[in-house]
């Protein structure tokens, strides 16, 4: 015990740590290279940026979902929070409200849906996955009641709201994709550089210890679910601006893709840790797979299967790496003791 560490300062400086997202980034680049060599047209900037555009709406949800997995929760209702907020915003636009204002209300509405999830989960001490299993259908049902089963199309699309969001900067980069990237960067900072992000990881890592350290665990869970709702709202109103309409069923199949992207990105289901960059790249991998298959002339129906296979592959690799790391840690501990 008397022996102190040689010099912790030097030790931390000396060891440069590889960013953990390196694995998924390499996987994405390799995939694109393979497709690009076989079908050079795939690497055309126009195609790549349209790919990025397609990633936007689901990618935003994935960014929010990272926080949930990091706090050891899952929100199943994201797709319908997305849909419901979009429907409400679109209906307000139809009613003649200024689209910017309607969009803002849509985001708040999404946050409100998240608040509903959060209040139920916190007051009843239920896991969010159970609560959102119920609200999944509630939000879907309410949305259907409100939109009467029809697509909502704001008639007057002359507002700058529509033109700004669907514009492509330099004829290439969709503004929606830019918003997505800004959101991702902001959320990355929130997760790693703010007290809220710290608390999320602490609660997810060990809720008991977090409570014993005086961390307000319920408050943090509530905040996380509200954040998820607000991001769904943002994604929803952007969708309305981008497509000019919201279909009654849009969003229903989002949740599994979103969770898949987060997991491919390297966020563990066991909580305590998350990577936004990984989730964004994970979502891109999923998009590259489905569009790559089209480039190879393989029927698009295969993309679902391949996406699933990639998830299985990603989690098995992850498990393998963790297993080895744990063994190494154990070995080093034994040498320390002896």
């Amino acid at each position, binding site marked *: *015990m008397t022996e102190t560490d040689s010099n*912790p300062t030097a030790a931390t400086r000396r060891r440069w740590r590889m960013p953990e997202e390196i694995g998924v980034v390499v996987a994405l680049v390799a995939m694109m290279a393979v497709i690009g060599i076989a079908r050079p047209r795939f690497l055309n900037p126009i195609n790549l940026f349209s790919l990025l555009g397609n990633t936007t709406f689901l990618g935003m949800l994935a960014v929010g979902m990272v926080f949930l997995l990091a706090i050891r929760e899952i929100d199943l209702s994201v797709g319908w929070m997305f849909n419901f907020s979009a429907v409400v915003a679109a209906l307000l636009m139809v009613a003649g409200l200024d689209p910017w204002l309607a969009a803002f209300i849509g985001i708040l509405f999404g946050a409100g849906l998240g608040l509903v999830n959060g209040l139920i989960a916190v007051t009843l001490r239920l896991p969010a996955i159970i609560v959102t299993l119920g609200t999944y259908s509630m939000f879907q049902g309410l949305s259907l009641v409100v939109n009467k089963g029809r697509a909502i199309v704001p008639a007057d699309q002359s507002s700058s709201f529509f033109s700004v969001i669907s514009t492509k900067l330099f004829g290439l980069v969709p503004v929606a994709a830019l918003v997505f990237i800004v959101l991702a960067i902001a959320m990355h900072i929130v997760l790693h550089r703010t*007290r809220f992000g710290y608390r999320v990881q602490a609660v997810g*890592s060990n809720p008991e210890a977090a409570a*014993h350290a*005086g961390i307000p665990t319920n408050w943090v869970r509530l905040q996380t679910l509200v954040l998820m709702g607000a991001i769904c709202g943002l994604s929803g109103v952007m969708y309305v601006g981008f497509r000019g309409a919201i279909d009654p069923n849009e969003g229903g199949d989002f949740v599994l893709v979103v969770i898949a992207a987060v997991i491919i990105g390297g966020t563990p289901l066991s909580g305590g840790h998350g990577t936004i960059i990984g989730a964004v790249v994970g979502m891109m991998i999923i998009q590259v797979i489905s569009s790559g298959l089209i480039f190879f002339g393989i029927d698009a129906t295969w993309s679902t299967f391949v996406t699933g296979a990639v998830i299985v592959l990603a989690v098995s690799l992850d498990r393998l790496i963790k297993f080895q790391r744990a063994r190494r840690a154990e070995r*080093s501990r034994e040498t*320390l003791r002896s």
Partner: protein
Amino acid sequence: MISVRNLAKRYGGVVALDSMSLSVERGTIHAVVGENGAGKSTLMKVLAGVVKPDGGVVELDGTPVVIDGPNAARQLGIGMVYQELSLFPERSVLANLFVNREPVRRGLISKREMEAACSDLLDRLGLNVDVDAPVSRLSIGEQQLVELARVLLERPQLLILDEPNSALNSRETERLFAVLRGLRTSGITMLYVSHRLEEVFAICDRVTITRNGRDVLTRDRSGLTIAEVIEGMIGQQRDALFPPALPPRSDVAPTEIVVSNLAGGRLDKASFTARSGEIVGFAGLEGSGVSDLFDMLFGMRKARGGEVRFPDGRGMPRSATEAARRRVCLVPSDRRRDGLMLDKSILFNLSNVVVGARHGSPWYLARAALDRARRQIEVLRIRGAPLALANSLSGGNQQKIVIGKWLEIDPQVFLLDDPTRGVDVGAKREIYGLIRRMSAGGGIVLFSSTELPELIGLCDRILVVYQGRIAGEVSGSQMNEHTVLHLTNTGEMPQADRRPQANQETVA
């Protein structure tokens, strides 16, 4: 019938069994007593095949045997009833009795056969419950009997009981003892581990006293007194483990915490006052209510009644967050579950309270966190780099992190719940030094421990909690292991030092 010779087992640097020898006669109830860490539980686990010894011999009826797993133990006729219940609470009594060896007829589990096989035994145990009801609906005492029945169904020759009545009230204990006496007449040998000496004397035929992983003394119960047993458990183990008290800082105003009639959990009507600059010890058996007291003072548990006045003039915190903000800290007894984020770095863990609980800047600054980590690593001499995972550290270093994250906010009230559990001797000494510093720096220190020597070596006075009430306070010349052990185990002050046992003269 069964005997062990020179059994040894170490966990890392901690010696659990040094050289333990023991011999049990057929058809007797043989008690093994000793303080925490004396090696009782490890000995039992070796016999049950759960723990592999590093050395020594186990002999069954004179032939050496190797017990390399719980199944091997079972085949040798050794059954063990664990201290904590290992039942499946949602499943029925029958399902629990026949876990993993359900009688099968035509590919289906036969409930009728199960009932037939156990009804006789349940009658004998006096367990008249609905066998289809989930175990969670039974009282703790009944659950304990289910546990016992499950082991007895395997027809063991040797039955090991590790504090089987720790959760029982006195009536249930009586019933359990009646059952055990019945088993003894039917020829079953029993090894009985307990802290509670009164009970040991009530039920056992022979007693082995253990200390520091060795057997100190084995004798028939009729040749022993409680006083002698306590003497044997303590031994002569005073050493320079405890640093002397430091001079108190003169520049801080004295403060105090006043607890009156506090009740909650197992604790009932506790009243005491603790002042800054003193270390107040809390002694009590597991489940006596000390942990409940600390949880309430820390806002983790709601009180049923009573009042507390903290040094800041306010009452009880309503949440742990509020406690942390009012500079009340708790070092929990279960370090791995309640104290640490094991998959996180030292740096992350040390920021727990400052970043996680307190008001202040909404940013988490990596630079500040690193400074914090370096500071505590230096002050507490934690062996590890700031980014090392908490899981990779030894128990002592882990405990220093738990303490260190609180030192960052300079607490006024320290609630230390068994802070040296599972920590090696070197780290223990360092932690004792820290506790001295907390107290000298103007903190109010409430210190609970399951190890008597450290309570006596460190505390200014000791409050003994027995079954939820404060049974007594010892200080000054009264503060010796004999008195405290007597209080913790019986709830009464020893009368005139030695009390002759019924029809038994004290042996000089």
